């Protein structure tokens, strides 16, 4: 087990180097000069531009810029944004906000998704099943910004039950509405995944055996059916958690959440190399860790899965 984890972490190192290099190259290759854009519609004096370029090492060839950046990372220095703020400070400020939002959304979608999916699967073809399928179809087909705008208008402006945008410090109660919006699409996916998986598992031999041994459905459903149906759901949740953590740009924009997606979007538009690369690097790390955790979690769900040294 520890050997397995160790190997996975070793594998992560080249992935880390490769992604930072690729992302840095892509930001570098983006057309347009970010320094010129700093001046808006006004044309800056070339000497001032040259001075600023030197300040952000933009006058160096690509590989030198990359090595300067990489060298900084190992000293814990992720560079500066154009507003003079260390990128580490931006990371430390935005990730907790997005993490809170992501966890909240994940809790909503997991709880309601699995519950509804399980009931649907067990009552296949009944009214509840049909209506839950219809609702999930609607949620999947609606673009998330429509759900966000409608949610914001109905609950924020019209009914006044929630704040229209997230206030400073991103308190938990303000995050409920955006989290529900974020959870809605995944909720629908989880309902469908759980339902299909439950239907499949219910027809398997060991379930029949369990029932014929005289076990009650109170025991068979959670322990035999649900637990064995959860593998595809967990895989989905893991990817989804990654997606949520690296920022729900659109939803964060609509609800003005000072999180990762919002900040990264602005940095890309401005061409702030260090900010973009650092954010993406942290995202890659999160994906790697989440993936390792999921692989380990499979073993808990299905005893047949074992990790060899």
């Amino acid at each position, binding site marked *: 087990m520890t050997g397995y984890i160790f190997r996975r972490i070793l594998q992560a190192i080249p992935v880390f180097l490769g992604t930072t290099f690729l992302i840095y190259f892509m930001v570098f290759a*983006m*057309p*347009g*000069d*970010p320094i*010129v*854009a*700093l*001046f*808006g*519609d*006004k*044309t*800056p*004096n*070339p*000497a*001032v531009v040259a*001075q*600023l370029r030197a*300040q952000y090492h933009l006058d160096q060839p690509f590989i030198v810029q990359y090595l300067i950046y990489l060298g900084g990372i190992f000293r814990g220095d992720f560079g500066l944004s*154009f*507003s*003079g*703020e260390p990128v580490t*400070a*931006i990371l430390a*400020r*935005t990730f907790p906000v997005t993490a809170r939002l992501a966890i909240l959304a994940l809790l909503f979608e997991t709880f309601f998704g699995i519950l509804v999916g399980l009931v649907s699967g067990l009552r296949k073809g009944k009214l509840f099943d049909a209506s839950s399928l219809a609702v999930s179809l609607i949620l999947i087909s609606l*673009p998330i*910004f*429509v759900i966000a*705008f*409608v949610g*914001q*208008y109905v609950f*924020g*402006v*019209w009914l*006044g039950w929630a*704040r*229209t*945008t997230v*206030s*400073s*410090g991103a308190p938990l109660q303000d995050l409920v509405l955006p989290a529900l919006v974020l959870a809605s699409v995944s909720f629908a996916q989880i309902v469908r995944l759980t339902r299909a998986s439950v239907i499949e598992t219910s027809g398997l031999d060991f379930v029949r055996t369990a029932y014929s041994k005289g076990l009650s459905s109170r025991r068979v459903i959670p322990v035999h059916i649900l637990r064995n149906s959860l593998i595809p759901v967990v895989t989905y949740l893991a990817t989804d958690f990654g997606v949520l953590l690296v920022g729900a740009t*659109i939803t*964060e*924009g*609509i*609800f*003005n959440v*000072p999180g990762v997606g*919002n*900040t990264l*979007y*602005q940095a890309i*538009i*401005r*061409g702030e190399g260090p900010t973009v690369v650092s954010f993406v690097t942290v995202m890659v790390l999160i994906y790697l860790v989440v993936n390792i955790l999921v692989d380990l979690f499979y073993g808990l769900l299905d005893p047949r899965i074992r990790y060899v040294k």
Partner: protein
Amino acid sequence: MKINRLGIAAIALAAVGALTLSGCAGGGAATPTASSNAKAIITTNGSEPQNPLVPTNINEVGGGKIVDAVFAGLVYYDEKGAPINDVADSIKSDDNKTFTIKIKSGLKFTNDEPVTSSSFVDAWQYGALLSNAQLGSYFFENIEGFSYDEDSPLTGLKVVDDTTFTVTLTDALSDFPLRLGYSAFYPLPAAAFKDIAAFGENPIGNGPYMLAAKGAWKHNEKIDLVVNPAYDGGRKAKNGGLSIIFYANQGAAYSDLLANNLDVLDAIPDSAYGTYEKDLGDRAVNQPSAVFQSFTIPARLPHFDGEEGKLRRAAISMAINREEITKIIFSGTRTPASDFTSPVIDGWSDKLKGADMLKFNAKQAKKLWAEADAISPWSGSFQIAYNADGGHQGWVDAAMNGIKNTLGIDASGAPYPTFKEARTLITDRTIQTAFRTGWQADYPGLFNFLGPIYATKASSNDGDYSNPKFDALLKKGSTESDLAAANKDFQAAQEILLQDLPAIPLWYANVTGGFGTSVQNVKFGWNSVPIYNEITKG
């Protein structure tokens, strides 16, 4: 110029928002109470400053709004854009070249440092020095000693005593005193130069407001300002402070206004153009501002030079129906242009000779285009380059359709994905089409709309326009001793522009905004920013 980049936020999304929002308007309106509360905090929209809060390094509205509240310069501008002495006691000159500036005595920064003539001179020296790479350094380029090539002190600045200093310019500039209200000319306390980075996070000013506490700037969230009790100028606050909330997306700010989470909004999102006047009633604001929008046709493009070029430019200008586009595409939030400046600027006129060039006239356009064809037949297509991240597609397509239908030529928009890509091609002169241009005034003067853009070799002369007659009139205006006489010269200079049309004027962007039910006395200044110190709440 102050750049407003909020418009970049997802326009496509916003359009859908309009559909969902337009259905139901109104909601419960709170009953306003009679007495206002002098301690009340006004909440308003802003955007995360893109640079540290050092006045000489601010060139966009996000940071500009904050430094204007935290600092007091020699003069400030009233609602109409007229300069009124703030820290200055008097600004005098005999020749518009050497200015003697006297400041009021006994004024203090919020760290109890006195505001002296050195506070100004040192701040300007800092802002002008090449190696400090300040975005606003060009404001000092007219002061003797300024250099873009090396670090050189401004020899034109001399401290006479604690309350007097003199400024010597390289050439006469009649509107120099008018410029002094811009943020680049604000004073700095000596404490700033000890650690400019720390100062940029927690600026210490002398203005009507000050930071509520150290660290009041919560990045990407908001900044809290409270009243500076020591400030005693003409902008004394009638409320308890400002809470400027940063929005990455105007739609979110608008929703907050509708839900009464926000008191004052100075930018209505495009998506709500059709509905905001109904949503807000008499709390909606829509008035012209100091923003001029145009597109520039460089003379180096084939067919656009000399006599042929003049005819083609005039024909294209007359083929665009500005009235219709501003009404339909912009729902009346733009005002058709009748010159190269802005109606909020003293000296603006819609009766300039040649202003009919900017009116839709299909017959005349066809005639002029045919005359140009007689000189050299037209070939190829006419294109306008624009940045696709700024919500420009609508008007570009409409204008191009107008040109296509009227002149019978192939015309289309040429979108570039990002602002920075388009700007880079424009500044390095590699762009091979006409391109979108815009100008937001730094200070309320006609010269600011003309000199930096159309004077020969001027910094923002992206179309490389040059006309000695125009240059001479600008120069004449700059040396006049009286602003009214100067404005006459600038108007005459514009009449030359109307013949040459180096850029085709389109319209003036209006400031669109609104305010909540609990605030009163909300007025917008000449620069599109609400006059915050006058607002009362209660």
